[in-house]
């Protein structure tokens, strides 16, 4: 594929890059302390933090991936946004932010040290640090691959260097604005990126729907299961996701969702940057509102791509249309031939759903905007990981174990160098991904194994004063081990033992890898919960006076009576959940 961009398209991209770097330059003079650099001085208004909270998660893998899932599974993909995010965002805002913010912890691992002990902090800091570097690297890799696939630099950069140039450019830009302006720069750019993504994709949805006859046209062209999110959920074999309602709600809606939105420092850091505890509680609630609407921006294009009639050949004078609309077929890069599965059916490249739609509907001018929106989403994902890494490295590893008594100016300098190191290591991770088959799948698996048990530790730590440090550590290790064992003994139908599972023994088959993933999470959480409770009862708890501000029952409740009723976090939370219920009923 080769995309010819006009001068106007390049100009639009250039404008965006000027503002991205300009914000970093403008903010540099305000970076006077490590608190300014790592936590934005805790001075950012709630609406800014809220949009950044959402945008930091909106990496292009999410945008491209959700479009691809929309094309494959239909509206059922909305579960990743609705039950798979919103309830957790409401919970963390109302119940957990008072502890994260009120404890004055500078990071999530630091909260774990305050609540439990050093070894629990160390385990979380190291695993999180490694994960963020790989996540950033994967973002870089995916972006470079997409640029290569779209042929954006064709004719400008020799084809064999496109990947390297793409990685280098993205690394330099992200490094520059974070080095200069720290978390504030990252947050401000994430808000810019949020609005760019909306601006870049909204016309696409409008044009795509208009072309196929609107929502009614979509309904008539697609199978009925595509247009309903809860249809066929009573059994795994009767819906496109291959998982039943219990696995979906418990695995995705509870364990994985809460495990990410409530404990991942990448997003929690954005809420910690708010200008008050009251604002910090509202940050995830503010983020939840556009989060609920985003399926119509990123999932709907996938459905539109499948629904748009596309002629692929002519037979005896008649046009033959693709069964998957505009979704391109995967081609073997070595032979140029069409890839087929074991039944001889073409293998479709669903990841190209949104890019293909962009190239189809966007003429020069707005094409530059659409591609800039895609690039912006990649960079927000990278930058989010880098800022989380440099804070965890500086506070939880360097200051805690390597150099405890340096000045604040020294830690500020370390934060800047950690940014450089983090970006370099991310580039290394991007190249590591190119060198090994299935490494992306491996890394995603590792992330899910590490994240799955986390929420049990936080849940018990924040809401049960009897939880001990030894129990938290034992629970995390046990939960991760349980996740590994479950993965090693189960396999999705149609997959071979190995990276997809059953590498220990094949004891159970799941209808899909999604079902296996959700049930792995349920097992990991449950084992962690049980082990943590049992070990807590066998070990000595800390005195209650040491846990004030860290445990729900020992902490004064946040004061809300001075706020107008519509501005109280609880009211906002109830409102968000009510809208969520309406959406689920409307598209059930």
């Amino acid at each position, binding site marked *: 594929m080769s995309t010819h961009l006009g001068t106007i398209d390049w100009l639009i991209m250039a404008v965006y890059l000027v503002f991205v770097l300009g914000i970093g330059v403008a903010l540099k003079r305000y970076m006077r302390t490590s608190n300014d650099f790592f936590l934005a001085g805790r001075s950012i208004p709630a609406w800014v933090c809220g949009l950044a909270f959402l945008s930091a998660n909106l990496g292009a893998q999410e945008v491209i991936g959700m479009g691809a899932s929309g094309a494959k599974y239909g509206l059922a993909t909305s579960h990743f946004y609705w039950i798979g995010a919103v309830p957790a965002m409401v919970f963390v805002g109302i119940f957990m932010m008072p502890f994260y913010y009120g404890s004055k912890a500078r990071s999530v691992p630091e909260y774990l040290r305050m609540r439990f002990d050093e070894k629990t902090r160390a385990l979380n800091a190291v695993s999180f640090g490694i994960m963020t570097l790989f996540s950033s690297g994967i973002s870089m890799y995916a972006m470079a691959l997409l640029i290569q696939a779209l042929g954006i630099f064709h004719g400008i950069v020799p084809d064999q260097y496109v990947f390297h140039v793409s990685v280098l450019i993205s690394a330099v830009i992200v490094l520059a604005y974070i080095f200069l302006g720290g978390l504030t720069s990252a947050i401000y750019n994430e808000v810019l990126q949020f609005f760019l993504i909306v601006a870049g994709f909204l016309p696409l949805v409008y044009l795509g729907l208009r072309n196929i006859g609107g929502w009614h046209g979509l309904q008539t062209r697609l199978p009925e299961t595509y247009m309903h999110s809860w249809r066929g959920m009573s059994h795994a074999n009767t819906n496109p996701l291959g998982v039943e309602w219990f696995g979906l709600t418990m695995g995705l809606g509870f364990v994985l969702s809460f495990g990410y939105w409530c404990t991942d420092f990448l997003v929690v850091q954005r809420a910690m940057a708010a200008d008050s505890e009251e604002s910090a509680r509202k940050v995830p609630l503010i983020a939840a509102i556009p989060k609920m609407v985003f399926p119509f921006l990123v999932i709907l294009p996938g459905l539109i791509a499948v629904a748009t009639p596309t002629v692929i050949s002519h037979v005896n004078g008649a046009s033959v249309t693709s069964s998957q609309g505009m979704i391109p077929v995967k081609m073997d890069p070595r032979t140029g031939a069409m890839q087929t599965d074991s039944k001889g059916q073409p293998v479709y490249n669903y990841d190209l759903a949104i890019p293909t739609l962009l190239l189809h509907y*966007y003429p020069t001018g707005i094409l530059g905007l659409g591609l800039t929106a895609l690039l912006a989403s990649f960079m927000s994902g990278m930058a989010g990981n880098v800022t989380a890494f440099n804070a965890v490295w500086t506070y939880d590893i360097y200051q805690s174990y390597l150099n405890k008594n340096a000045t604040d100016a020294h830690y500020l300098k370390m934060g800047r160098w950690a940014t450089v190191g983090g970006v370099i290591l991310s580039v290394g991770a991007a190249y590591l991904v190119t060198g090994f088959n299935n490494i992306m799948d491996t890394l995603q698996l590792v992330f899910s194994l590490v994240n799955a048990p986390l929420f049990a530790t936080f849940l018990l730590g924040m809401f049960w004063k009897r939880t001990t440090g030894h129990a938290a550590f034992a629970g995390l290790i046990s939960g991760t081990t349980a996740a590994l064992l479950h993965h090693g003994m189960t396999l999705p139908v149609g997959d071979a033992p190995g990276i997809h599972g059953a590498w220990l023994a094949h004891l159970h088959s799941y209808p899909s890898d999604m079902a296996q993933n959700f049930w792995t999470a349920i097992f990991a959480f449950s084992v962690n919960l049980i082990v943590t409770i049992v070990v807590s009862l066998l070990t000595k708890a800390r005195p209650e006076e040491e846990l004030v501000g860290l445990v729900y029952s020992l902490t004064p409740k946040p004061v809300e009576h001075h706020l107008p009723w519509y501005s109280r976090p609880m009211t906002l939370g109830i409102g968000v959940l009510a809208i969520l219920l309406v959406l689920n009923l409307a598209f059930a």
Partner: protein
Amino acid sequence: MGLDLRIPLGLMFLSIGALMCGYGALTWHSPIYAQSLGQNINVLWGSVMLIFGGLMFFLGRRARWQEGSTDGTVGRPDTAVDASPRRH
């Protein structure tokens, strides 16, 4: 931090919106708009972005004017270091 985000946000969308509207005006009857179902999507969407960018910029500047008139330093240059960590 002393930089109101609405100002660069507004300026960016004003810039991009102006570019798109300008290009759309220059290519008014171009066949490239067959892709966007016959609509001059550059002018249409560029206009929306101009309005959004203008609104954001106005809100950001208005906040600054109000701060300036409150403490008696109207017209204080944007480059002044912000001593208060919570003003936006």
